[in-house]
């Protein structure tokens, strides 16, 4: 059984290597390397999702939001310093806003506890809500002039000019902190609540990044993002992308090894026990919600690192470029198709799905232009003008269909989880 499993893994990876080699020959080195580097970053994201879905059974429907917040964190840390901003009066104004938020937040938290000193709960709730609203309004009023000055003078606040690696770490931390809040609220409730909460937070993060022009330049986008390796303009496409690819490969290997060690440890065993039977795990004294929160946060940290790496590779921070289909459901397919609960499966799924996804773009266009030509010749129906954008929508359909088909016919994925038996 073990031998067939290993044979299967090996043959699938050999098949994938063959496909990638064909793409190298067909499309050239630079193109194939770009694809591989992006697939590598997505493999990190997929490993993070596998922690959540494969090992903890938590369904995260808002990966896009966590990738976006991580990319923002990474951009903020690593983008060059904007001297115009620091010389203006804006930092002082922002500091004032920070003080307002801090004081208001402290007052709100204190008010939310006064029921311990004999104040009736109703009055406490009322006071807390009023304090929170007042803080919010005051912070908003403090922010508006600062944002106006920043947008007028310096465009946006720029970054801190620190190393990119640190940026990715901070990005991961941003995603993890956001995950902690979501997890605290929804874990322990029905499992669908986590899905809707993550879905909502993803849209909110996107709306925020898109409209907070003073912070992210909004739809004007920020580019070029600094790379951890020499960029293409310095050493050429092939060398730069190879270097980037090797960094992501090293990251994948490190994360993979750490996760494998984790799963083999008593901690990993406890996690599987919780996933497979929450009640039983709770009965033997495990704090289920706390452990699940732990997994959710760790998973999102990995998602954040991978997402930051992915956006850094693209070189442009564009809040409108975050799409649920590219950044949430594609990753979901990678994990489910690759085999949830199997890290190697997630990496394989990420590479395979991304290769297919990239290749499907020209394929869909060719297919549709042929189909349109045929329709015109046979039936005399003129194709619509936006045929190209519509053809790409077909891929959304295919992703949806794949999710359904995998759930129905191969719920364990191509590389199923190895069941460890303890005698």
């Amino acid at each position, binding site marked *: 059984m073990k031998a067939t499993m290993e044979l299967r893994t090996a043959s699938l990876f050999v098949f994938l290597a063959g496909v990638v080699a064909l793409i190298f020959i067909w499309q050239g080195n630079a193109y194939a390397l770009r694809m591989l580097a992006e697939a590598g970053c997505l493999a990190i994201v997929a490993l993070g999702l596998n922690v959540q879905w494969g090992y903890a059974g938590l369904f995260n429907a808002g990966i896009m939001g966590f990738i976006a917040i991580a990319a923002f964190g990474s951009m903020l840390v690593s983008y060059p310093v904007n001297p115009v901003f620091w010389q203006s009066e804006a930092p002082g104004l922002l500091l004032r806003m920070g003080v307002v938020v801090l004081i208001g937040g402290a007052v709100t938290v204190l008010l939310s506890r006064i029921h311990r000193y004999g104040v009736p709960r109703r009055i406490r709730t009322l006071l807390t809500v009023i304090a929170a609203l007042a803080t919010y309004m005051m912070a908003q009023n403090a922010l508006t002039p600062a944002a106006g000055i920043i947008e007028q003078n310096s465009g946006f606040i720029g970054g801190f000019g620190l190393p990119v690696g640190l940026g990715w770490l901070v990005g991961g931390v941003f995603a993890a902190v956001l995950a902690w809040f979501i997890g605290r609220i929804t874990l322990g409730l029905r499992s*669908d609540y986590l899905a809707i*909460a993550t879905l909502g937070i993803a*849209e*909110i993060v996107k709306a925020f990044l898109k409209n907070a022009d003073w912070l992210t330049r909004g739809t004007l986008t920020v580019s070029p993002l600094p790379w951890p390796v020499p960029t293409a303009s310095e050493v050429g496409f092939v060398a730069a992308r190879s270097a980037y690819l090797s960094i992501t490969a090293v990251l994948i290997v490190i994360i993979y090894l750490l996760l494998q060690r984790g799963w083999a440890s008593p901690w990993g065993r406890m996690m599987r026990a919780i996933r497979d039977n929450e009640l039983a795990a709770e009965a033997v004294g495990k704090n289920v919600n706390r452990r699940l929160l732990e997994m959710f946060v760790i998973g999102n940290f990995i998602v954040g690192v991978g997402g930051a790496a992915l956006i850094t590779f693209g070189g442009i921070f564009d809040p409108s470029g975050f799409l649920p289909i590219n950044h949430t459901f594609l990753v979901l397919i990678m994990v489910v198709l690759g085999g949830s609960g199997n890290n190697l499966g997630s990496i394989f799924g990420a590479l395979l799905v991304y290769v297919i996804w990239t290749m499907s773009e020209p394929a869909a266009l060719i297919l549709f232009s042929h189909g349109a030509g045929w329709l015109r010749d046979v039936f005399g129906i003129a194709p619509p003008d936006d045929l190209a954008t519509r053809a790409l929508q077909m891929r959304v359909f295919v992703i949806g269909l794949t999710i359904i088909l995998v759930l129905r016919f191969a719920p364990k994925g191509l590389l199923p989880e190895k069941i460890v038996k303890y005698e």
Partner: protein
Amino acid sequence: MENIGLLSALPINELVFFINKVVIAGLIIGSIYALGAVGMTLAWGILRFANFAHGDLMTLGAFIAFMLTMAMPGLGAYVGLPTAFVVLPIAMAVTAFVTIFIDRTFYVPVRKTNPKPITLVIASFGVMLMLQGLIRLFFGTAPRQMYVGPKEIYRIPLAGRDIVITEPQVLLIVFTAVAIVALHLFLTRSRTGKAMRAMSDNADLARISGIGTAHVVRVTWIIAGSLAAAGGTLLAMDVSLKPDLSFNLLLPIVAAIIVGGIGQPYGAIVGGLIVGFTETLAVFNWAILLRPLKPHMPDWLELPASLTFVPTEYKIVVPFVILVAVLIWRPNGIFRGRVL
């Protein structure tokens, strides 16, 4: 005589502005959310999973109505109503049929394997993507106009000012009221309606007392699908037909459901109105209402030009905040009673 004096003292301008911008707008969007939420909450309660494709089902229904309208644009003139409204029953029926088809082909096979509820949620995400892909493949991504002719606008004068309401808005409010009453009668008077409530309360108990599960599930999907189509079409008639509303509809609808408690159609209606009114109140510029008070205010209190709680771009935050608040303080919905 006293009445007139009172009227002139009242800030009529601001009041009418408030009615136009908040009362009517909130009622409109709240009714849309209610129509979507009722169907989804029924399916959620009976089948025990959140059908995330519901938002796109609404869009699909609207597009079916759009196609029918384009096929026979003159139909409305005979009846004196907008064409899209006249073809609405057909669109509802078609969407209900599509919903049952989706259930048969995609959900039933997964359901048979007795999965965790979250697996069905993932399947519904798959269906959602398929619907999105198909809609955008056939109709493109640009918004479209649902109206053949110009919209009729009614003006109700109130002390020199007009309360403005358009024909589709009136139709929407009337339709929602009728639909709610009909649904109430159905759920409380008919055999199937009672069976549905029984199954939502306790599926196993309902099954052993001889309720035909398959029939109840079918009726649930018919109600969910047809109300979704109606909501989507009426929304498209009021503003325009956008193919990419999906999450922007889904999030408030789910918030409405959770406010009212899962599986509670009446709760969903109230929840929909709550979410709709909160949204409009949050983006409303309160400075306009405070302006008449200005002469009476002390000098040090300066009135800002714009005093909104939430900028319009962040509207989607409102249902999310409601959702989170309810999940924290009352995870079973704001009404007391047993919920899923």
